[in-house]
């Protein structure tokens, strides 16, 4: 069919273009602008080329934050995904237990990030916190303020507490969509519990699982508020993740150039990973 060309169509997309320009493109361009210039105040800027990028990419500090962030994301995925699947598998499929479980699961998701941080900050305190006080009374040397390991354990526990529910709810949605006939057929075929999981439940969950992994990875890779409230990135720099480090450089030290360069690099990494996930997900779909 012959397409009709009408340049008036551009006017129709103009509102969207404007919206995206103001909400995303223009702010991003100002960041790009900062990242290639240097200033000594008075709003006077000097062209600086790719120097800030080189500095960031060569700084040990950036890579350490990156490694910490990757370890953090990998750890919480390794805990939350299997745990989420396990809980979803054990949730009731019908009866009064369903709404009860769903509400209990949804509760942590409804709490604002900084409140979650505050809850755990207090919860872990050895003087008044339930967790911290109990642990130290039992003779454990727990102190997230001084001990990097304890700080990590606390931050990871907090993230698991906060976000495992999301994985559970997604998996549960996948599980309840499996018709009974599949389980009945599996019984008739003599399938073991493991075979039912491996060949019926897991394949039916794989799309929601991909979404869960994507969401949890993205979120944990950008995590800021909760660890900032609990540990402030410490002790030392032990829980300083990329976004915390970025904020320290940009607002703490007011190094706008390096911070802008780091933002762009950070952005590109997330873009790259999103693309990888997108490709994986569409490939899985194409296979169907």
């Amino acid at each position: 069919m012959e397409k009709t060309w009408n340049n008036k169509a551009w006017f129709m997309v103009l509102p969207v273009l404007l919206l995206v320009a103001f909400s995303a493109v223009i702010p991003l361009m100002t960041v790009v602008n900062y990242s290639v210039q240097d200033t000594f105040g008075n709003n006077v800027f000097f062209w600086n080329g790719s120097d800030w990028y080189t500095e960031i990419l060569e700084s040990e500090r950036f890579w350490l934050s990156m490694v910490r962030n990757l370890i953090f994301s990998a750890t919480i995925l390794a805990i939350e995904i299997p745990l989420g699947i396990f809980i979803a598998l054990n949730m009731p499929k019908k009866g009064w237990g369903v709404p009860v479980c769903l509400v209990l699961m949804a509760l942590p998701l409804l709490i604002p990030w900084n409140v979650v941080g505050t809850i755990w900050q207090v919860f872990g305190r050895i003087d008044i916190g339930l967790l911290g006080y109990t642990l130290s009374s039992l003779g454990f040397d727990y102190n997230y303020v001084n001990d990097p390991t304890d700080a990590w354990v606390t931050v990871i526990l907090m993230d698991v507490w906060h976000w495992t529910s999301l994985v559970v709810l997604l998996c549960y949605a996948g599980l309840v969509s499996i018709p009974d006939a599949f389980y009945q057929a599996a019984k008739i075929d003599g399938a073991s519990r493991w075979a039912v999981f491996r060949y019926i439940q897991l394949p039916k969950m794989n799309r929601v699982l991909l979404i869960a992994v994507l969401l949890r990875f993205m979120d944990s890779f950008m995590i800021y508020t909760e660890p900032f409230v609990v540990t402030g990135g410490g002790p030392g720099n032990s829980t300083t993740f990329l976004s915390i480090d970025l904020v320290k450089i940009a607002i703490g030290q007011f190094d706008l150039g390096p911070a802008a360069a780091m933002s762009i690099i950070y952005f590109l990494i997330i873009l790259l990973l999103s693309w990888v996930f997108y490709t994986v997900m569409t490939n899985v779909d194409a296979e169907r």
Partner: protein
Amino acid sequence: MARIDVNHVRHSYLPNPQKDADFALREVHHVFEDGGAYALLGPSGCGKTTLLNIISGLLHPSHGQLLFNGKDVTNLSTQERNIAQVFQFPVIYDTMTVYDNLAFPLRNRGVPEADVDRKVRETLEMIDLASWAKKKARGLTADQKQKISLGRGLVRSDVNAILFDEPLTVIDPHMKWVLRSQLKQLHRRFGYTMVYVTHDQTEALTFAEQVVVMYDGGIVQIGTPAELFERPRHTFVGYFIGSPGMNVMPVAIDGKTATLGSQRIELPGAPKAGSGAVELGIRPEYVRLGREGMAVQVSKVEDLGRHKVVRAKLEGRDISAVIGEDETLPADPKVRFDPAGINIYADSWRVEMEA
């Protein structure tokens, strides 16, 4: 293969059933002979799937006993009963290949891989999917998927019975016919005991040697398709089987004569006394339309291609008659009842007539 005895089985989905109405299956007492092809026919909610699931062990009956070849299996699990069952919607393991799907029930039972391979190849031939063996099962059409569901039952040569729960519901009409004839062929070649649940009378009548008609949680009649057609034991069977269903009208009986309003109908014999309301049932195929007999008012004629269905009023009651495609209605239509097609019912159950 096995002979299946269903001994006074009752089932309720409620924890404490009290009245008859609490039971999804009121009481079924029936023997499925070894190697027989049975259809369980009935409307939705009559308990046919419940009965099937009790046989396969997916449900444990509230009362009664189930025997396979004389051995009590009531408390055995589905797996121990060694049953194959094909469901309404095709169940396939879509991450596996067609081959692995068929091998699955054998591998679960720890059969050596060499035997698995031999059995799977045989089965693939039987269900005509040999060229698909290496393909992922998820890419198949609905009828191929249903064949795989069937194949997973056939692959175990020692299954006690193959149960079908409305297996052709999601299949295209022309494939329905193909699959049905393949099922019949498999039955003839290998002599499986087959029980086939359906609400489609054509499916039931073409598939089965014995049709078990269920209604409201119980069996109302068991018979060959011809018996169900000629001598429905219950007025429900008359309605349910045949298209259009049997004409049923209240009558008064006096010896060998039935009185319907002002009309008198000669019966082939004198009905034995029965209790309750007396009705006369006659299939539209036995209602003769002509110039003699009882006057009717024709309301409409449906031309079905092979024959015509005449809808009319006799003594104020609806009556249907089937006439040939080329026959025409007389100007002043009258009906006669062919005595061979007359059945008398007391309280909905058929009563015998003495010559």
